[in-house]
């Protein structure tokens, strides 16, 4: 018996009213994807762009912690689907509303199921930007982003570490082969001189931002009002103006 999954058909309709979909990617963990994603989303929102944020780090969502979103009390609104609540002007969607910070171990096919479910039932409405934060690795979450988000643009994050640089180079090769648009590279936690420009020039890409190591960044986390005043924002604002120029 063939049983059909109707969700895939509706996903493209749900995302049709989103103008630009930007996925923040890095195969290496701990390079700052989540905070850069959030800062970019907030920076765009502060420029009156209509912004959505999707935390696709399903087994370890943390974006809500950085913004101080109370996932126990705040929930998406049910109205012919799920309408994400707005946090500082951003329509913020995360699985954390449903797993309530309990452990959530998922196998690959379950991750794909959650992504299909989230994309099928989330009603974003008209957006200028949907910023998608992803977990490290080149596995189900990243592959699903490339599959379901038509015309997705990617922003790659690395640190000067040789391990992160080698990882991002593998990602670049994969994206180029799949003809996925790469907006550029963000080199984060820079202490002395850039190391990513060599890789960028090798593949005809640009390093869009060099963000220094900000030692007290944790101090700015836990409250969206506080986070927008963090030193990270000034670097990401420059990144935002480049991206927002189109």
């Amino acid at each position, binding site marked *: 018996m063939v049983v059909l*999954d109707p969700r895939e058909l509706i996903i493209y309709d749900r995302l049709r009213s989103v103008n630009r979909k930007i996925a923040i990617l890095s195969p290496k963990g701990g390079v700052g994807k989540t905070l850069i994603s959030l800062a970019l989303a907030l920076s765009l929102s502060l420029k009156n762009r209509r912004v959505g944020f999707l935390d696709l780090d399903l087994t370890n969502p943390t974006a809500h912690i950085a913004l101080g979103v109370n996932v126990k009390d705040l929930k998406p609104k049910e109205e012919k689907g799920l309408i994400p609540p707005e946090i500082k002007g951003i329509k913020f969607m995360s699985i954390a509303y449903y797993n309530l910070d309990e452990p959530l171990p998922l196998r690959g096919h379950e991750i794909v199921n959650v992504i299909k479910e989230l994309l099928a*039932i989330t009603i974003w409405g008209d957006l200028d930007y949907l910023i998608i934060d992803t977990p490290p690795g080149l596995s189900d979450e990243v592959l699903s982003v490339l599959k379901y988000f038509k015309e997705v643009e990617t922003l790659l994050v690395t640190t000067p570490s040789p391990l992160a640089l080698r990882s991002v180079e593998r990602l670049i090769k994969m994206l180029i082969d799949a003809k996925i648009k790469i907006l550029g590279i963000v080199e984060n936690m820079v202490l002395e001189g850039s190391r990513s420009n060599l890789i960028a020039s090798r593949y005809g890409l640009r390093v869009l931002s060099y963000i220094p190591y900000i030692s007290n960044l944790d101090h700015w986390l836990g409250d969206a009002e506080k986070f927008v005043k963090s030193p990270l924002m000034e670097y990401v604002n420059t990144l935002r103006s480049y991206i927002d120029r189109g």
Partner: protein
Amino acid sequence: MHEWALAEAIIKYVEAISKEHKAKKVAKLVLRLGVLQSIDKDILKFSLYELAKLKGIVIDELVFEDEEVSLRCRSCGYRWPFNINTLSEDVREALHFIPEVIHSYIKCPRCGSRDFEVVSGRGVAIKEVVLSGGS
């Protein structure tokens, strides 16, 4: 009314297959509903008929089949039937939207692992579409 979003997906499929076969109507539509997701059948039925009307689709017979929840531990192999009524209302609502969050609330009763498989009872699926008056 998250059922409306699911109904939209189902009707989109039914519309595509009806067009493909140039069918005049749907004689029978059989949907399999995983009990884990606590779908409200009345709301789903209402949403399906409303959306079908908007698309000019006639559905003669709509059948819902429940699929009970069965879980199997990947760690120790234990298999058990699961009664979602043992969960609190909040948790049932979470599973209603994202069934996979069951891993946050349930452990294998034999070994305590959260690495178990939902063998049956998850999600909404189209089991059968019978078209009539088409090619």
